[in-house]
């Protein structure tokens, strides 16, 4: 939350002089100034995660790349958001995400409504040059209204965060490590048997892909509704003021 008393920093993003509160991230300031930085795990209204690495930017004087969603502004910072190197890295990240799971857009409920799919188009990722893994992953359709297809999960943790931070239920979490990591409900019980799930559907709507969806939706029918999130966050911020 931006405090009125917070100090102002000045910095450059892509050569453009910008001003920002000291408690703002590079991503927030870029957006305020109409500068596009691609994101996937980030979602306005949820805490930043820094997991997908698509928002990596170059900062002059620092020889590693920094994720814009968790990098706070500093006085005199010079940020580059869209160099040839960054474009290549971002396309490679997308290729790795596509190759890691089983993303078959043509038969996906979220076809045409998917953040991963549209980013691939936007960033010019037209084919995957690394070998596909084709892992064998499970589907949990035990919930009455919703289903989870782990084949399409990219481990962004939006569902985990919205369930914990907004709904306050913390039904979702990540189990396993590295390539074995996958999302689970409660203590790795079937979703339909979860005692904490309130069936609010927030996880379904924040999911960037077709991993979480409403039952009964056919190919390309699963449009996500996210309008509630900034609204809920704004109302809570007002209340705590």
């Amino acid at each position, binding site marked *: 939350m931006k405090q009125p008393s917070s100090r102002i920093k000045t910095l450059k993003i892509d050569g453009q002089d910008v001003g920002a509160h000291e408690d703002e991230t590079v991503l927030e300031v870029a957006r305020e100034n109409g500068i596009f930085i691609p994101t996937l795990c980030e979602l306005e209204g949820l805490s930043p995660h820094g997991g997908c690495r698509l928002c990596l930017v170059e900062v002059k004087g620092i020889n590693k790349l920094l994720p814009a969603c968790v990098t706070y502004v500093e006085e005199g910072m010079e940020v580059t958001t869209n160099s040839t190197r960054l474009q290549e890295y971002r396309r490679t990240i997308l290729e790795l995400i596509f190759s890691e799971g*089983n993303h078959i*857009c043509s038969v996906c409920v979220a076809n045409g409504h998917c953040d991963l799919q549209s980013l691939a188009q936007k960033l010019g990722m037209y*084919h995957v040059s690394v070998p596909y893994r*084709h892992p064998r992953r499970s589907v949990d359709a035990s919930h009455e209204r919703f289903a989870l297809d782990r084949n399409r999960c990219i481990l962004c943790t939006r569902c985990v965060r919205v369930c914990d931070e907004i709904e306050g239920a913390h039904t979702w979490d990540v189990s396993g490590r590295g390539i074995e990591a996958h999302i689970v409900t409660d203590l790795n019980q079937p979703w339909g048997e979860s005692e904490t799930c309130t069936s609010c559907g927030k996880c379904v709507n924040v999911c960037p892909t077709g991993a979480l969806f409403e039952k009964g939706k056919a190919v390309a029918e699963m449009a996500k509704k996210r309008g509630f999130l900034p609204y809920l966050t704004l109302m809570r911020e007002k209340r705590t003021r």
Partner: protein
Amino acid sequence: MSKVRLATVWLDGCSGCHMSFLDMDERLIELADRIELVYSPLVDPKEFPDSVDVTLVEGAVSSNEDLEKIRHIRKHTKILVSLGDCAVTANVPSMRNSFRVGEVLDRAYIENASTQQQIPNVSVPTLLRQVLPVHSVVPVDVFVPGCPPSADTIHYAITELLEGRTPDLSDRSRFGA
């Protein structure tokens, strides 16, 4: 002006990309002034010709026959185009890749067959262990994603190639579209 020699091939796909190609409708007649369709499921010749300017490939590489075909085609083609998601990503055919070939054949021809339960093994090509996108087997020059790419997209890609340009498909097609 001599005509550009165009070929289209159909590997492991549903022929939807070829249907989309036909959906160019009257534009096919305009194109016919500039191209000669030398090999295709839509025309007669049975042998892939020795020298082809542009080949559009529909479908993924699924069998030893696909593999032989695409290697031969690559040798005799100047510009190889992966047309549609099956050629570009292996798409729906690749959904069998999470399982062993034996499991897939058992499921289709034994478990789910009510009569004549037998796995075909006479005069059918052997399936590869994994279904592969075309570019993982031979170099590909142009990628046209889409399931299928629209007639407009295909028309644009072909006319750009006829003008000697590499088609920029950024606003025209995507995976699954």
